[in-house]
């Protein structure tokens, strides 16, 4: 209690930055600002309608407000499960501040590696889970809602409507994180997170005579660069477990296989498209050149990430998160980030990304302390919270509020990565948004084995002979499985058809937002 009093005066002496953030948050909360950046947000004055919560405690960018919730007064333990990664220090700081503000509440933050997080679903179904769960931990939202595993936030969060409205558009979508009008997730990271950037060892590529910093490599240059690096004693390209799907899908989609694996305009798989087959040809040509690092087949991405700074391989296609990992762990590693190669110069098509997949949190329906979750979500799911996330993590991973991404002064390559992220990624349509019954198909849908990654790696290792036939086979099996899943959903009462996978008005160059669904 004493602590609270000590801290209250502190809130009066706000730093310039926190004032700025507060203004931004308040303005956003009132829904007056679009996604035009912090400067715009800072200029607008706080709307009187915005709830002004009394500040309980402030620690750096972390702020604990009194939201007027009735929090438990006896000693309780609240458990928050999460993935690992750059977010961890943010949550630790938030929880430390919260526990200082409310000493009777202990928050146990449980950050699990991917292998363990997949098991969270087992706990949820056996009726015993953490109070907060990360969204991508093997728990399917439509199923979790139907089974009553996760709770809607509408009645839990303080001033829920304003909290929700503050988010950028297309964050909450029916069939993804909104069901029957109720909202089930507290998004923290953006859906648009680039998973297929080209990372390169600046020195090795410079020695080979290439610099993709400003203009992406063409396929020919990409192959030639890899070959030259290899001739000079190192290896041109590295990828965990074989080239895998990222190599082929990324190159094919940038070359014009819209939607990557699935064309949302025609509703057909792209596996037999010219772009996919050409990307496979390129892969095999580079393999003939000897440009892939030997032994990469038995490596994981973790291994690759740790080995790349040693300079034995020049290029690697992976996600935007690598920027901050290397900058923090390997400050001496001189690497660059660029768009994946394009077939010929200037011709780069956007990459599609599913909506509503940004990392978010669910509230476990069996939680005894939903008010604690509400108090934490209210901050995590706000511009202020996003700013704190970015400031504490110092990572480029795009937060859900675009303004927050401009707060942290990233390195040049970090800025470049964000620039490519924003330039290249476009939200694709999702059948579940259009027709809720499509979620039943998703739950019926079984993995196709061998999948694209298996087939590509099989072609690479020589275990799959005829690429064209293998891709045709993959196309056929994928079609059969989608049709089978649709039929199974129909048999159990869903009103859904393959037409729900066809979006005639899809333009790969534009975000497929809610208005587009209405045009259909």
């Amino acid at each position, binding site marked *: 209690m004493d602590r609270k009093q000590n801290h209250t005066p502190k809130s009066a002496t706000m730093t310039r930055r926190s004032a700025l953030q507060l203004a931004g948050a308040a303005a956003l909360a009132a829904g007056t600002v679009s996604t035009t950046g912090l400067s715009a947000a800072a200029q607008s004055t706080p709307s009187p309608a915005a709830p002004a919560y009394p500040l309980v405690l402030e620690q750096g960018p972390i702020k604990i407000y009194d939201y007027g919730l009735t929090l438990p007064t006896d000693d309780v333990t609240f458990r928050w499960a999460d993935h690992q990664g750059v977010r961890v220090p943010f949550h630790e700081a938030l929880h430390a501040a919260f526990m200082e503000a409310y000493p009777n509440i202990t928050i146990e933050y449980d950050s699990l590696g991917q292998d363990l997080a997949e098991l969270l679903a087992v706990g949820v*179904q056996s009726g015993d889970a953490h109070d907060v769960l990360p969204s991508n931990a093997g728990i399917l939202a439509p*199923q979790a809602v139907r089974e009553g595993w996760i709770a809607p936030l509408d009645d839990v969060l303080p001033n829920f409507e304003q909290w929700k409205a503050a988010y950028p558009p297309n964050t909450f979508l029916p069939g993804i994180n909104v069901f029957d009008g109720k909202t089930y997730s507290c998004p923290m990271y953006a859906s648009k997170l680039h998973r297929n950037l080209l990372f390169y060892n600046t020195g090795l590529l410079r020695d080979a005579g290439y610099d993709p910093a400003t203009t992406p490599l063409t396929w020919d240059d990409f192959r030639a660069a890899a070959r030259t690096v290899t001739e000079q004693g190192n290896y041109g390209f590295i990828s965990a*477990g074989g080239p895998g799907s990222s190599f082929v899908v990324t190159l094919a989609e940038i070359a014009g296989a819209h939607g990557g694996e699935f064309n949302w305009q025609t509703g057909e798989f792209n596996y037999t498209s010219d772009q996919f087959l050409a990307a496979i040809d390129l892969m095999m040509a580079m393999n003939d050149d000897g440009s892939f690092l*030997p*032994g990469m*087949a*038995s490596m994981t991405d973790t291994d690759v990430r740790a080995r790349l700074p040693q300079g034995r391989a020049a290029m690697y296609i992976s996600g935007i998160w690598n920027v901050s990992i290397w900058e923090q762990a390997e400050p001496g590693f001189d690497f660059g980030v660029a768009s994946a190669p394009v077939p010929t110069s200037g011709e780069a098509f956007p990459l599609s990304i599913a909506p509503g997949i940004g990392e978010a949190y669910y509230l476990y329906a069996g939680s005894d302390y939903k008010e604690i979750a509400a108090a934490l979500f209210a901050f995590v799911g706000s511009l202020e919270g996003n700013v704190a996330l970015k400031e504490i993590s110092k990572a480029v991973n795009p937060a859900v509020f675009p303004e927050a991404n401009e707060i942290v002064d990233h390195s040049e390559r970090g800025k470049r990565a964000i620039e490519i992220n924003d330039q290249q990624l476009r939200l694709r349509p999702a059948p579940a948004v259009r027709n809720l019954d499509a979620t039943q198909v998703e739950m019926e849908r*079984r993995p196709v084995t061998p999948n694209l990654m*298996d087939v590509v790696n099989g072609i690479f*290792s020589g275990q799959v002979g005829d690429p064209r036939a293998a891709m045709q086979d993959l196309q056929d099996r994928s079609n059969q499985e989608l049709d089978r899943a649709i039929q199974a959903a129909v048999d159990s009462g869903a009103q859904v058809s393959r037409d729900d996978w066809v979006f005639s008005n899809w333009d790969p160059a534009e975000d497929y937002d809610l208005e587009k669904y209405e045009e259909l």
Partner: protein
Amino acid sequence: MSIGTADRAQSLVRAGSPPSGKSLWQRMWSVRWCYLFMLPSLILTVAFTLYPTVMSWYFSLLDWSGFGSDRDWAGFANYREVVRDDLFWNAYVRSFLFTLAGAPIKIGLALVVALVLNDASLRFRSFYRTLFFLPVVTSSAIIGIVMTFIFSPLDGPVNMVLLQLGFIDIPVDFLGDPDTALWTVVAVYIWKWFGVTMIYWLAALQVVPRELYEAARIDGANRWNMHRSITLPLIVPFALVIVLITVVSALNIFGLVQTMTGGGPFFATEVMELYIYRNAFGAGEVPRLGYASAAAVFFGITVFAVSLLQGWGLKKANTARAQMKTQ
């Protein structure tokens, strides 16, 4: 066949219950304490082994992801799908290949090392036994990463040695090449679990009276003849048990393969447990517990058949030995 029938009959007599001439109930009542004292073990077996197993048979008849209440009765559909899946048979064959290659070498090598480490004249035997046992307790995750260095085609020591000895001209990607990956994993498996088999052999060798060796030595027998004529016949019954345990554990190999290759390249090292795991818990994909259970049950039945065959062999061997003794 029962255990030491004569002994048991004696015990029963002493317990005041002649084995015949009474009703089943009377006979059961007279040995009621046997049932009581078996209870803890039976409860643990039934609750944590039999019940989950029977449940998995039931799951194998469902179309169920393993999560949620959406459990549809599927009859034998899962089984029909299992036997039609090429990848199932791929894993099936690999499991048996793995076992056929791994078990005999492991059992044989472990016997040789056990014979050496059983020699009373060898000093520091306990020390060596511990060293050979160390891989058993080394963590699988760490082994996974060490082995990628050891078998690396870039600068791994195995390739270095083979290149220098002239066995190969270019480095081999042991874990990445479909022709070598399975055998590399088999080699690591033998190394990792060697210690357990060695301990079993050492135990078996304790039954060979030391003075038999002394006598043979006085007779001028060399080491090989000594083992062939004295050791091997005495440890045959053990051998069959060790083979059984080793074969069953090899057929169920999982963790080591998962950390080393994850089943790749292109399913070249996907043994049965990996296939089951991929379908039951496969990361990032919709799991199919019902289907995975069907694959597991089907595989389990065939393993059972193999074991029955082995047991039959064991019985034959015992009978043969018994006949030899009576002659």
